[in-house]
C-alpha cells in the first residue's frame, strides 16, 4: 500500500460520511415548502435548523484536507481516478444509513468502478 492510496481512502471516508449527513438533511428539506425564496436563502435558513447540514459540511472540509494531501503526494490523473472509490463507499453507506436499496445496475456499476480503480492503482 502506498501513501497516496491510503490518503485517498481516508479522504473519501470523510467525504462519504459528509455526503450521508448532507443527504439526510436534503431528505428532510424535500418535505418543506419553498415559498419561492432563492435557494441560497433557503440554504442559509436550513443550516440553522438542521445540524446535520453543517456537520456534513465540516466533515467534508476535513475530507478535503486529506484530499489535498493525497493530491500533493501523487500524480493528478492517478489521485483523481482513485477518488472514484467514493461511489463504492457511498453505495454501502447509503444502504446502511439511509436504507437505500442495492439493485443489479448499482452492483454492476460498482464492480466496474472497482475494476477501474484496481487497474488505476497498479498503473505506475
Amino acid at each position: 500500500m502506498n501513501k497516496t492510496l491510503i490518503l485517498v481512502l481516508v479522504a473519501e471516508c470523510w467525504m462519504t460520511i459528509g455526503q450521508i449527513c448532507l443527504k439526510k438533511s436534503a431528505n428532510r428539506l424535500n418535505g418543506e415548502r419553498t415559498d419561492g425564496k432563492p435557494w441560497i436563502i433557503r440554504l442559509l435558513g436550513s443550516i440553522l435548523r438542521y445540524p446535520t447540514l453543517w456537520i456534513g459540511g465540516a466533515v467534508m472540509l476535513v475530507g478535503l484536507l486529506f484530499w489535498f494531501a493525497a493530491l500533493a503526494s501523487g500524480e493528478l490523473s492517478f489521485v483523481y481516478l482513485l477518488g472514484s472509490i467514493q461511489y463504492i463507499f457511498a453505495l454501502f453507506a447509503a444502504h446502511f444509513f439511509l436504507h437505500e436499496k442495492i439493485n443489479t445496475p448499482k452492483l454492476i456499476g460498482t464492480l466496474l468502478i472497482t475494476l477501474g480503480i484496481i487497474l488505476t492503482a497498479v498503473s505506475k
Partner: protein
Amino acid sequence: MEKITKIKQLPLKIFLLIVISDLLDTNAQLLIKKGLGLTDLSSITSFFQHLINFANPDIFLFWIGLMIYLFNFFLWMNILSKTDLSVALPLASFSYILIPIAAILFLHEFVPPTRWLGLVFIVLGIYFVSQSKYSRVSP
C-alpha cells in the same frame, strides 16, 4: 410519499450548467495540484505552513483552485436540486476524461495504458450506477 417530477428531456440550461461544473472541477483540481506541487507530508504543521507560505507564488494557484472548488460545490448542489442524479451523474463523469487530458497538457504527466483502461471502467461503472431506478424513502 411526495411526488417525484421526472424531467425526461434535459433542458439546455441544465446541460450547460453541468458542462460548466465539469470544466470548473477540472480547473480547480488542476490549480490545486499545480499549487501544491509535490509537498513534503512528513508533518501536518509543515503541510499547513506550506499552504500559507505566500512567498511561494505557486500557492496562490492553490487558493484560487480552492475557491473555484467551493463555488463548484454549491453549483453542483444547485444542479442536483433541479435534475435527477441519474441524468447529472453520467454527464459529471466527463471530468474523469478531462482531468487526465489536462494532467498531460499542463502538468506533463504520463498516463499509462492501464490507467486509461481503468478510466474506461470507472466511467462505464458510473453510467451503470446512475441507470438504477431509485426509490426515495419518505422522511
